[in-house]
């Protein structure tokens, strides 16, 4: 536990010095919050059935893209950064366990992703309440809450697992980032498709997406853990 904390703090210290990561971690959430506020603001008075709902669905989607996308850059740079610097071997020479290393890398991306997602959602509420004159409709209903607090962590986990797998094979952070972005698409495509629909998200749909993500994450994380073993890292990684 102690070692895990040590790894996490080091990951964040390094990430904070990486402009690519900082840029993504600051601008992406701000952009999403801005866009979501605009959607909600425009949708506030619309009477056309379905139109308002589509706008709100899109706003929700923004908050589900964040947890999937933020870990990509952090994980890709942290793993490939270690490779480029040749720092994995000294790190593996310490008494850390393979699992501690894996969790350190995974949580170092998942935790900020969730903090930023939920922080953005809070900011969104804070900005839209005065603009719309009260809590925007739908936003604090069970499907939204289940999506923001249930789907977001699953999306992050899935995303981190994919990036860790891809990064173990790649030697260029940008390339790993791009490949991982493509690889997580199946996880967020349902959201994108659904966001154009004119029916409200239901708990059933959120649950369905959640179940699919749980299965996908378990598979991906299983392989990622296998790849994150000393022996593998030192002898098989490229």
């Amino acid at each position, binding site marked *: 536990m*102690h*070692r895990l904390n*040590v*790894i996490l703090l*080091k990951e964040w*210290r*390094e990430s904070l*010095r*990486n402009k690519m990561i900082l840029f993504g971690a600051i601008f992406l959430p701000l952009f999403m919050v801005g866009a979501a506020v605009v959607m909600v603001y425009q949708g506030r008075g619309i009477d056309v059935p379905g139109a308002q709902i589509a706008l709100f669905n899109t706003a929700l989607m923004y908050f589900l893209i964040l947890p999937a996308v933020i870990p990509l850059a952090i994980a890709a740079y942290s793993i490939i950064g270690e490779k480029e*610097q*040749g*720092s*994995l*071997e*000294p*790190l*593996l*020479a*310490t*008494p*850390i*366990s393979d699992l501690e290393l894996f969790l350190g890398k995974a949580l170092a991306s998942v935790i900020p992703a969730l903090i930023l997602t939920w922080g953005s959602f809070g900011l969104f509420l804070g900005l839209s309440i005065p603009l719309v004159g009260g809590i925007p409709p739908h936003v604090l209903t069970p499907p939204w809450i289940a999506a923001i607090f249930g789907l977001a962590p699953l999306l992050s986990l899935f995303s981190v697992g994919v990036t860790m797998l891809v990064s173990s094979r790649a030697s260029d952070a940008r390339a790993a980032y791009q490949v991982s972005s493509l690889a997580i698409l199946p996880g967020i495509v349902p959201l994108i498709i659904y966001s154009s629909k004119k029916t409200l998200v239901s708990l059933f749909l959120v649950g369905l997406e959640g179940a699919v993500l749980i299965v996908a994450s378990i598979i991906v994380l299983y392989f990622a853990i296998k790849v994150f073993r*000393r*022996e593998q890292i*030192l*002898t098989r990684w490229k």
Partner: protein
Amino acid sequence: MSNIAICAKNLTRDFDTVRAVDSLSLEIPQGIVFGFLGPNGAGKTTTIRMLAALIAPSSGEATVAGLHLGRENRAIRQHVGVLTETPGLYKRLSAIDNLLFFAKLYGVPEPRKQAERYLQLFELWDRRDDLAGSFSKGMRQKLAIARAMLHEPQILFLDEPTASLDPEAAKVVRDLIETLRTKERTIFLCTHNLDEADRLCDRVALFNTRLVAIGPPQELKERLYGRRTVIHLADPHPGLEDALKLSFIKKIERLDNTLVVSLSDPERENPILVSRLVELGAKVQFVNELRVSLEDLYLDLMEENNAST
């Protein structure tokens, strides 16, 4: 605790079809500097990785710091320090942050104090807050050695610590290594620099996938070449060799005015040899012991080894 630092029995490692290390057996006593010498691709790094519990042997066994390789890997990692082939520092972290991170991972009781101690010891104190990425190669290497020392390991593995350093930086690092040896600490030094090995090591192993030879450098040289005395004469004095007639002379070679005499006990035999030469009218100018370098030994043994395989 026994005073054997490392004991390996038939340690072997295969990579797919390549055998990198073949039945390596050795015993390294505590407190010595052990030189592990071999050409590129000999399997030196693979050996270090196995002994430091980073990768598993394909077969064979070892105890490291009295701990069983395979069963007590975590404890082994806690008791050994490794300077890897490349320094592998975090370029975006300052020198002190690099050390603090490792000190904490090793569970050093007072990480900051210990990091500061080594920064001072290694003369990096003034640059402690600079990013490791801004360091020169020599400074990086020093910082990397400091990192491997923070938890005061019983065994320190150094994988080519002076490769790619300029002569001055190499000397600094070499002197540093000298200061790290203590009665309790064993240093396992891989190097290509044979002069360095000759100077630093109490014992060396010549290795090329298999062990070629092992022993104190001086003993190895004597085993291979015997001991030889070089005598410079003022003039050629033909026929002198045959006139000597001393039974203890094993072999005598001549190059112009110089005689090279192989002896088994030069301390006792040289005075007799010299007085006999004077008796025969030879004008002796200089008498020296012929010193072979570890390099000669290495090159000869490796050649022999290549020829036999």
